[in-house]
């Protein structure tokens, strides 16, 4: 539990972060809330030579209305501040609800939305939520900024589309307009553990039928997964179709086997939890 020696840089601006990243390349790691990185360093699974602390970069905090039907959430906005933000609660309450299930109170008071997403862990809750929301991330590097769709951002286990000299500056999510319902089913061993499987279901209802359904799966592959077969099967159907559709929720997934669950059991859970989440969301 003693990390290896590292240099520490406290950045004051995004430009300073980018410059420092450029200088150190993959020897540097960004420190946001630290709740994923520091445990890895203490176990010496990660041993960056330079830690760049983003805690004083005020440009990276807060939520604003982009005016194009989307919200932009600064990467260093803490989970607790996302949950409590009036704009998020009014326009994208589903994100607040999923965020409320991240970790435990300590994690939510230190951890940040950008840090959680940039870590690229498909067992954490926000990647599947961002995928279901069709959200995007804004990355900034030496050559300026670019916007990356959630579906392109998560590449593999703990691997994202970010370059070594880029940082996530903000996360963009659409405003949820119309009669949407949602439910995040998080299935854990103990309350504060990672999800064995998580399912975010979002359902837009119209005249008693399902106009649109979205299903994001947590921890069913090395990246967050959209259960697109389930979504398509429900389009234009009544909620009666949910049980049959959910039976295909594990199609196309590649869950791992570990001490908490076998892959086969994870697939089973994905089907059960998808059904339950959809039924709750369609209610």
């Amino acid at each position, binding site marked *: *539990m*003693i990390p*290896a*020696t590292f240099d520490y840089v406290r950045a004051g601006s995004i430009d300073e972060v980018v410059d420092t990243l450029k200088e150190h390349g993959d020897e540097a790691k960004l420190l946001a809330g630290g709740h994923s990185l520091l*445990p890895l360093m*203490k*176990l010496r699974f990660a041993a960056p030579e330079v830690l760049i602390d983003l805690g004083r970069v005020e440009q990276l905090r807060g939520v604003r209305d982009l005016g194009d039907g989307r919200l932009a959430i600064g990467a260093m906005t803490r989970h607790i501040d996302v949950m409590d933000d009036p704009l998020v609660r009014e326009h994208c309450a589903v994100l607040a609800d999923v965020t409320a299930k991240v970790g435990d109170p300590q994690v939510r008071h230190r951890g940040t939305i950008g840090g959680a997403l940039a870590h690229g862990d498909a067992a954490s809750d926000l990647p599947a939520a961002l995928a279901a929301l069709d959200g995007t991330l804004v990355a900034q590097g030496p050559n300026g900024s670019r916007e990356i769709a959630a579906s392109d951002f998560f590449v593999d286990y703990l691997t994202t589309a970010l370059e070594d000299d880029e940082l996530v500056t903000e996360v963009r999510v659409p405003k949820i307009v119309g009669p949407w319902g949602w439910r995040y089913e998080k*299935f854990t*061993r*103990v*309350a*504060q*553990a990672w999800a*064995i499987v998580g399912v975010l279901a979002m359902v837009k209802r119209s005249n008693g039928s399902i106009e649109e359904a979205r299903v994001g799966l947590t921890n069913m592959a090395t990246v967050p997964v959209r259960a697109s077969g389930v979504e398509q099967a429900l389009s234009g159907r009544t909620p009666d179709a949910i049980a049959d559709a*959910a*039976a295909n929720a594990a199609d196309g997934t590649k869950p791992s086997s570990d*001490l*908490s*669950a*076998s892959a086969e*059991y994870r697939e*089973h*859970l994905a*089907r*059960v*939890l998808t*059904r339950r989440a959809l039924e709750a969301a369609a209610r």
Partner: protein
Amino acid sequence: MTAVDTPTTSNVGTTKLRKEDAHLVTGRTQWTDNIQLTGMLHVAVVRSPMAHARVTKVDVSAALEQPGVVAAFSGADLADQWAGGLPCAWPVTEDMQSPTHLPIATDEVRHVGDAVAVVVADSRYGAADATEFIDVEYEPLTAVVDMEAALADGSPLTDTQLDTNRSFTWQKIDGDVDAAFGSAAHVVERRFINQRLIPTAIEPRAVVCAPPREHREYTMWSATQVPHILRLMLALTCGVPEHELRVIAPDVGGGFGSKLNVYAEEAICLVLAKRLGKPIKWTESRSEGYQATIHGRDQIQDVALAFNEDHTLRGMKVELHADMGAYLQLVTPGVPLLGAFMFNAIYKMDALSFTCHGVLTNKTPTDAYRGAGRPEATYAIERLMDEAANELGVEPFELRERNWIKHEEFPYTTVAGIEYDSGNYEAATAKAKELFDYDGLRAEQQRRREQGDKVQLGIGISTFTEMCGLAPSRVLGSLSYGAGGWEHASVRMLPSGKVEVITGTSPHGQGHVTSWSQIAADALGIPFEDIEVRHGDTAVAHKGMDTYGSRSLVVGGYAVQVACDKVVAKAKRVAAHLLEAAEDDLEFDAGTFQVKGSPDANTSMQDVALAIFAAHDYPEDMEPSLDSDATVDPENFSYPHGTHLCATEVDTETGAVTIRSYVAVDDVGTVINPQIVEGQVHGGLAQGIAQALYEEAVYDAEGQLKTGSLLDYFVPAAPDLPHFTTDRTETPATTNPLGVKGVGEAGTIASTPAVINAVVDALRPMGVNDVLMPASPQNVWNAIQAAAPADGGAA
């Protein structure tokens, strides 16, 4: 009781806020890791990443070049420092096989985490960094992981110096087992797995050892439960004379048995302090502790019960495989043997055979973990009684009641040959059933079964007893334990009327300071606030057997009572002298000695204390002192018991288990402090439920610990636990003057089978008759899949 009058009770039996808590909750604690000494150095331990290997090379030279590094040693470098290996105090058989256990391995490592070298530096960080520069080469040997395979002919060996992995086979047979089983109408047999657990005290282990300064004494602070045992054993292991070693257990943050030991790091710190002449500190990290601190449980239990046609229990057979791990720690081999007296539990039977195979494997050693042998036994018998009830087609309570010892039958000598002094299983059960709404829940269970609910209700029963108050020294002797089970207390009456109680027990969360104050306050008639309890320092509490096995109150509290009685007896003689009355004419109540029938002729305990301090006028045939010592050796164990009931809701689709309600009615005899007792029960329940639902130490086939940190080893927290309904019946023990029985382990012992019985009960209609612990969603789902018809269980 001794000859003194019975004082008015005003403290015992009432909730007093704990004297310990103010400094705990305001952060004014002194944990071992808080101790800073001038010139102190830090030691880091290089540990084997392999479960079994020959160590072919250890080169520390590069580490010595690192900044801040003062010294580095291989096992060979320090081999001549040890007077002996780390001790096992419980040679259970004459031919017990015990691997040589040097604090730092020299040529063979036998589990992941076995020490191979140490680095000493001027900072903890520097020491940790330098470990990466110690060059160790290993030649892998086959790891022995599976207990049964370990005993098969031709198995690879856990220790190349031995010719077997069988440490011992120990047998105890009471009654005619063949007759009981041969003529039985029904036999119920099962194999249960009592999985390996990791104790996970909140405070990790830590050691500081300072070399002699003004005089020749080494001082060791250790996060230990057993400062007295540690002092003796380190003296033997490290060749430091016992009188030149002082051991202090400062504030200690939980132990659960994991700090009931003599560890390599304690010996290492002492030897390094000796060799380098500087204070040495070591504090384990959590993941280091998971490899280097003892584990608990880990038994394969093959058990059978024989019944008559009328469901009368005739006999029991128990065959255990108990995983010792790679070395025998302080009491490792003795732990499963405590079960020899406990598998029969509260039940009458004619015969009991108990066989235990202690098996060496290349895993972290096991040793006493909260309950130590008794939870394992209780789990097996209480699970088996439920299985028997199911097979025999009777209500589980009915089968238990038919066979348990009736309250009018106490004292009762069990089939295992020990005498239960007191108990009332009927009363505890009646109270538990009422609090639980047993009949109402059974009716709801029936409804939900008929409706085919996806979430089924299960009801689990555990009617348990345990043996506490370790222990009568002669009994320990008969079990080949290396020491006795007495306890010591001293009472010092100070001239101002205040009192110091010195106890040989060593609390680490139990609240002895408060409870012992309550006992002494009533015994001496001195205000609770005027009593200080000192403990955990061999220079202050010079004699003791420390804290484990729910012994502290039963034996240590007993000693406090006896020492107080001696003070009162002396004070009475002085009071009689001062009041010019015959001793027999005095009565003592609430701190006042009074001549019977003459209310004005009185004096107080405080006045007597001052008078004897001045010593101007006291009886000629006594010394001018009220101070007293008592060393008590219990005549018997104590036998707390109780009835625990658990209702679980089991999601048959996912396997998720939720505890809906939990009722614990415990009979721990006389209660000194109800709030402390309730706290002990709550903590015990959490740990027992943790075994049932959450925790398991998992090794892979190569002997790697897969649950190496709190990331993978699931310790439940408050959100994972139900509201506990606790209550008590009170049947005083007859074998100590306080009537106390001990409560430290009751919750842990009782709760695990209650929970698993409830899970199995919920799933019984689906054909499930057992579920592996922990009853994780995966394990429950597996049990459902295994029992269900081929098309069942799908979403």
